[in-house]
């Protein structure tokens, strides 16, 4: 009897929501995007980069990947600061990590020249 109850309750918990580990470290990526749109010009690219770089250090410490688009976004921020070399490096990292991005990354890389 008791065992059956345990089973039933366990099944309820399972069918509800099991927290799966995420595939990526999200950190503040989406909130940085939100904030930059919600208060245009108020958050300088430097601070956005700082927040994202912090996430990156954390991800490295826990051996997790950065999400799709993340390195390209970083490259876009470096580009805004006129740091073409770093921008180029991030776009290339995006392409290496996610080959699906190759067509767009090549296009953006060509625009950098």
């Amino acid at each position, binding site marked *: 009897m008791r065992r059956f109850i345990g089973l039933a309750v366990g099944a309820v918990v399972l069918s509800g929501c099991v927290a799966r580990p995420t595939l990526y470290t999200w950190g503040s990526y989406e909130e940085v995007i939100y904030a930059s749109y919600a208060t245009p010009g108020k958050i300088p690219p430097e601070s956005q980069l700082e927040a994202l770089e912090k996430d990156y250090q954390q991800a490295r410490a826990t051996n997790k990947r950065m999400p799709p688009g993340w390195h390209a976004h970083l490259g876009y921020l470096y580009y805004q600061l006129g740091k073409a070399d770093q921008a180029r490096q991030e776009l290339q990292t995006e392409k290496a990590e996610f080959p*699906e991005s190759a067509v767009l990354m090549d296009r953006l890389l060509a625009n950098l020249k």
Partner: protein
Amino acid sequence: MDLRALSFVTVLAVALLGIVGCKTVQPYDYTNFRAHPPRSILVLPPLNESTHVEGTYGYLSTVTSPIAERGYYVFPVQVVDQFLKENGLPTAGEMHQVPLNKVAEITGADAVLFTTLEQYGSKYQLLNSKTVVKVHATLVDTRTGLLLWEGRGVAEQTSSGSSNLLANLIAAAVVQAINSKTDNAHNVSRLANANLFNPKKTGLPFGPYSPEYQKEP
């Protein structure tokens, strides 16, 4: 606990299981999806049918993680938005009109997710505030133009006050003040997305980067 109490708990647990597990839902027809399973998805800024202009980016900034966590490559939404703007497409409406073969040529995306905000924002009533986000999404194959998947996600959040009328009036004003700064609908968008993408028989199937890829029946 005596036996009667035990059996009551059992019945309750089983009833709960029934509610959670066995809701019958008409499954989505994934024929087109299975014929052209995408690896990469380009998400355009949503068309905004609500009266809240902040919805466009309040929503766009919540849509990457749910799709990427289902196993797809998601193009960087802000980079794409800026790129399209710099290339003569200043609004979501114009971006949604770009021919699919052009999108494929420029970005290499397998599929485009078109979203429409049917509702977005908070309404302040006397005693509480209600935030609603309702989004409709269609996923279209860039090479064939076929509709691969579509769905609708809705989420609602009501913040209610206490039973004291004066306290309620103050509470509603405070809630309004807070929400007008943080745009609660931005947070509710995440719930709407979970209801849109994650349901088993009607949601977006798992993609190649997910450990669940192609394990679904």
